[in-house]
């Protein structure tokens, strides 16, 4: 794999900075629904930051804001020094976003799909062809690259999805539950690829609700519940703070501490 694109950030600066990020959805019947409340964290270059939380905890909304798919209600985030609110187009050039729920175009072949996303990223035909040649080796796509996506297995599709994410060589990768729906072997393969990307210097945000995955690949972990980050640190510091045990124990003890009253007070802070 070729060296990744030069970044805007000064050496040593965090590549991802999230500051008091909030998101409130508005429902005609229920009124404002706070989904993310004052989330702040940073991630240094070449590190994997894990966002750990239950379904509906606010992981996807947070990551969608970082990927500029959703606009923050307040607060901000900077990717490679660029503000997601002020310059979302530039942010998108610097990220690769993959969600476990997202699908691919069944009627395209793997090569056509990668070419399409290369074009959308503004790459030249020659650089697209060059990158496809590179990634088909590292992601072991050669056997099915010219097969239609609809005919591929779930594992093949996920490998192709990962390949799509890194095709334009972004310095930051955002993975939202990328192993969702995969069997054990598929999930292991995805984790192997993520670790490989980390070893090649990519900065990665990885959300999951599977503790073992977070334990395996994350340098830092934030536990998110009801839209708020309740605990943050590396695995060892989290264990120390919560009296040892596995990450699952840490997670359960952290989440169980939040009472509905506390959640309500947290919500009041962002209600208009």
């Amino acid at each position, binding site marked *: 794999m070729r060296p990744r694109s030069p970044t805007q950030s000064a050496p040593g600066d965090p590549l991802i900075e999230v500051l008091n990020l909030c998101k409130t959805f*508005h429902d005609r019947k229920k009124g404002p629904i706070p989904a993310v409340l004052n989330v702040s964290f940073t991630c240094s270059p070449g590190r994997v930051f894990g966002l750990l939380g239950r379904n509906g905890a606010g992981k996807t909304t947070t990551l969608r804001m970082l*990927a*500029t*798919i959703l*606009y923050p209600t307040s607060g901000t985030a900077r990717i490679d020094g660029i503000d997601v609110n002020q310059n979302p187009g530039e942010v998108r050039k610097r990220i690769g*976003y993959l969600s476990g729920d*997202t699908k691919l*175009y069944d009627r395209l072949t793997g090569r056509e799909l990668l070419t399409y*996303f290369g074009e*959308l990223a503004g790459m030249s035909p020659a650089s697209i062809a060059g990158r496809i040649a590179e990634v088909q080796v590292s992601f072991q796509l050669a056997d099915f690259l010219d097969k239609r996506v609809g005919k591929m297995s779930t594992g093949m599709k996920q490998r192709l999805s990962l390949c799509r994410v890194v095709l334009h060589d972004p310095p930051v990768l955002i993975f939202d539950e990328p192993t969702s729906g995969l069997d054990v072997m598929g999930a292991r393969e995805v984790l192997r690829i993520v670790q490989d990307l980390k070893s090649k210097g990519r900065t990665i945000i990885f959300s999951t609700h599977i503790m073992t995955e977070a334990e395996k690949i994350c340098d830092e972990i934030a536990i998110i519940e009801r839209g708020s980050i309740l605990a943050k640190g590396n695995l060892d510091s989290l264990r120390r703070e919560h009296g040892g045990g596995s990450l699952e124990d840490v997670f359960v003890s952290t989440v169980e501490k939040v009472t509905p009253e506390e959640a309500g007070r947290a919500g009041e802070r962002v209600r208009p």
Partner: protein
Amino acid sequence: MSGRAWAVCRKELRDAMRDGRTIIAVFVVPFILYPGLMLFMGWIESQNKKEEGALQVSVGVVGEAQLPGLTPALKALEGVTTVPLDRVPPSLEAAGVDAVLSIPPGIAQAIPRGDSVKVELLYKDADHKSSAAEERLRPVLDDVQRELTVLWARSQGAPVKQAPAIAVEKRDISSKAEEGRFLAALIIPYILVFMVAAGSMHIAIDATTGEKERSTLETLLATSTPRSDLVLGKMLAVIAVALTAGLVGILGLWFNLTVLAGMMPALSGQSVQLTMRPEQALFILLTVLPTAIFLSAALVAIGCFARSMREGQTYATYVYMASVFLGLGSFRQLGTPPVERFMIPILNTALLQREILTDTVVPMHAAVTLGTSAVVAAIMFVMATRLFSNESVLFRT
């Protein structure tokens, strides 16, 4: 009916009433769309009646002096100018008239003798003015028949009811080519609207709502391509398919009505000769463009708004139906339409195509059609782009 069947019925009704599509299909469409379209058709029809009433036609009359009752009868007709002619002209165009009423020489003597004579009204059904002249002269033809019958009865001293049939006939002298041109002008614009709308429907919804349904939307939104480029790209694809559908439609009509009919002698004798010169076909294709752009933009906007393919297709069907109704407006258009009718999308293109096919293009009509369609399509494009950037629309469930 058992209680359980009633429970199923209640559940289905509750389910359906919580589905926006049912509300639209059962309440909004029957209450607003259909009556609105009927109102529109009624307006077109009443405008047509007004225009028909105001239409001035010119009728050449050969041998007018031979029937004393004819001159006052013709003068009594509103909107008809008579032109005395010595003989039946080789064509209506040569005489500069819309129809010719021919009274054979010596009819006043021939009728009492019992000779076979024929009074004829020559007109062209394929020409709306000529056809209007024929319609206006119908009562005059009845008067002529009555006058000739009375003349025979008086000369024979016999009762009127014993009079032989006296031929007072109308003859459509439209050539096969003229009939074909008339038919082409009548049907092609309507069919093209129909084909372009049908052709663009599926791809527009698939390219927009399909992204949501297939869960490919997020991937697309996270790319560095501006939303306006994403929408424009989708619109261009829809326009390309819509234009292809229009082109294939024109080729299909030509192939069936000329080539295929020509290969089957039994059919060729009966079929009209669909006439469309190459330059007309080219202009027609160019005029398909505004309709294709407008429909594509409208359907893409709808697709961006809809939550699911089914919802998108439901909304698109209403656009399709409205397009077909607008196309029908051109079907009923007889004379030269007023310029404001060229400000109505789809109808304007159909009317312009009709003018192209009848070689009666008014440059102002073409300019208004293109201008209006471009403005409306631009508005639709901006709407679609805004919808495609609106997270509450994109991610609503």
